[in-house]
């Protein structure tokens, strides 16, 4: 990493942060891959015809029986020039086979939206709860700690199963289940970040100047809490994608009603052992690539906010 000189004159926080981030090649690679995923999601959402994605949102059998015109064989085809990632079939025999690349391109949109939704809502709710309870302290803080303890006391995949059992087995309900699991993590993180800034001299000064509790919390403490939380968000997006896809893979969303990457892998569950490995490995690999990209990005962002690394 090249050393960054402090600029003369007005100190530009954003410029310096951007420079630190872009000096890290792997983080930039992560950002590029992440933007490719976002671009794919936008194109499929706005102009599905451009990439040849012609399948409807729902993959319920009657709608899915539209056979791809180029696909003549019933058995899944291995990767070829026409189908770079091979083809798959919908579970029902005789329904014809579908291009895995197109399915994956369509599925990315759902995974991206779900993971961002889960992590952003979880982080927003959790961080506010954490900051408030740490600042008010005493009984409220103690209660918050005990409540989060309860959520940490069940392995999260099992809690996710139990929650989606109660809420109902749809994509959106699974997202809510994951939010219920995720907010305590941010409550704890927001709490520990607040505790370390609460005693700072400038907070004392603000108090002496007559600032109210709310003003101190949201104007003086929050700006110190947000950057590390943002780093955590970018690291968690990758984890949430993996957990969501894993739940879909073991069949939490019945009949794969939505083209989601884990549900796509679930379609290939019975095909892969017969030698059609790409039906599971391609969707799984796509999740890995996405997760890798956001993890690399998160590592880069961590360097940006770490004063030891930016000097």
């Amino acid at each position, binding site marked *: 990493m090249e050393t960054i000189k402090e600029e003369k004159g007005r100190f530009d926080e954003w410029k310096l942060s951007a420079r630190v981030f872009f000096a890290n090649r792997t983080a930039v690679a992560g950002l590029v891959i992440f933007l490719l995923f976002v671009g794919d999601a936008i194109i499929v959402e706005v102009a599905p015809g451009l990439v040849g994605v012609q399948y409807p949102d729902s993959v319920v059998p009657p709608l899915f029986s539209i056979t791809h015109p180029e696909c003549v064989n019933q058995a899944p085809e291995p990767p070829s020039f026409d189908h770079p990632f091979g083809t798959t079939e919908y579970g029902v025999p005789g329904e014809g086979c579908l291009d895995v690349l197109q399915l994956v391109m369509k599925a990315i949109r759902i995974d991206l939206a779900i993971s961002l939704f889960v992590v952003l809502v979880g982080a927003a709710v959790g961080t506010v709860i954490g900051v408030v309870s740490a600042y008010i302290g005493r009984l409220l803080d103690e209660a918050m700690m005990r409540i989060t*303890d309860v959520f940490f006391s*069940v392995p999260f*995949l099992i809690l996710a199963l139990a929650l989606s059992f109660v809420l109902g087995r749809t994509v959106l309900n699974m997202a809510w289940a994951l939010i219920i699991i995720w907010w305590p993590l941010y409550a704890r993180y927001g709490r520990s970040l607040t505790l370390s800034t609460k005693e700072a001299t400038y907070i004392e000064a603000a108090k002496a100047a007559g600032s109210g509790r709310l003003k101190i919390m949201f104007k003086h403490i929050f700006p110190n809490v947000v950057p590390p939380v943002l780093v955590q968000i970018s690291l968690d997006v990758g984890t949430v994608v993996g957990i969501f896809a894993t739940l879909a*893979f073991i069949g939490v969303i019945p009949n794969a009603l939505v083209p989601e990457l884990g549900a796509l*892998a679930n379609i290939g569950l019975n095909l892969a052992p017969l*030698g059609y490995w790409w039906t599971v*490995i391609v969707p799984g690999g796509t999740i890995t690539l996405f*997760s*890798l990209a956001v*993890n690399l990005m998160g590592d880069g962002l961590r360097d940006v906010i770490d004063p030891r690394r930016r000097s």
Partner: protein
Amino acid sequence: MKLWVYVLRRLILLVPTLIGLTLLVFALEHAGGPSVFLALYINPHLTGSARQQLVDQLTARFHLNDPIYVQYFYWLGAILQGDWGTSAQNGQAVTTNFVWFMPNTIMLTVVASLLTWVISIPIGVYSATRRDSVLDQGVRVATFTLYSMPIFLIGFALFLTFGTSWHLLPAQGNIDDNLLPTLSSKSWFDSNAVSYPTHIYLIDALLHGDVPIAWNAFLHVILPAVALTLALLAGIIRILRVSMLEVLDQDYIRLARAKGVPERTVNNFHAKKNALLPTVTTFGYLVSGLFGGAVVIEEIFGFKGIGWWTTMAFLNSDIAVVMGSTLVFGIVLVLTTLILDILYGFLDPRIRYE
């Protein structure tokens, strides 16, 4: 703080967590209304007047017409007496199911956690002591990639390569299907395909001196155990490496080097022990990941443990087993965390003063 005060404090903190856990499971069981709750205790095949009679009986027993906080205490009473409901899948009590399936999961998680430590400690330490070398870079790339892989992909890739493509290892079930008829003639085996006394085929076969069956059962453990290990390995190696790097940066390490202590002794004697200490706290993360991972891995390999049984219950709408698993995994995780915290307080006195 004395050690016993610390232990006592930890034990007192256990109480609200356990109460909260039961409240959570109670809330989940009652969220769907009385009919969903009754499904915990009533066999779905039961119909007619017999069913109505049972419904009335259960309504009286759990005081379902009383306020919800009254219901909680009657429910808690039933849980404490070991009445967790009946599995809709095999008609057995939920607790009986746990006794049958839990030992297999415990064996799998114990083997996987041992493998994780045996593999991750040398790699993490080696990678840190040769910071930024080609090997360190390789380890970092490998752990980063492995860390990004969803757990089902790790499990399924192993299943495909070693199981169905190369046929190197058995990848389905706890034992070969064609051995089951032979097994049913054994005295330590019952009609429910459950072995005695530990309910783990591998250990029971060894106890009864049946080497061929033990060997077959052992082969069936390898792939799930390795898959579970790989799922956790990357996270642990990363934590270990960072911890080791921090320790190597301390003054006493510099002093040891300045005194002329050989590099190897510095690494193995001065640094390693202190680097391992903070990783004990990550045990909680490890245990939680092990149990959660076991659900997926057991499902992929058809390994008949509690994770596999929970997934089956989930897919077959067997609410009693799903809720029971949530509670039982919660209790096991809370107790494991307690033991580890006490162990950590014992190993590192500083932690008791925080």
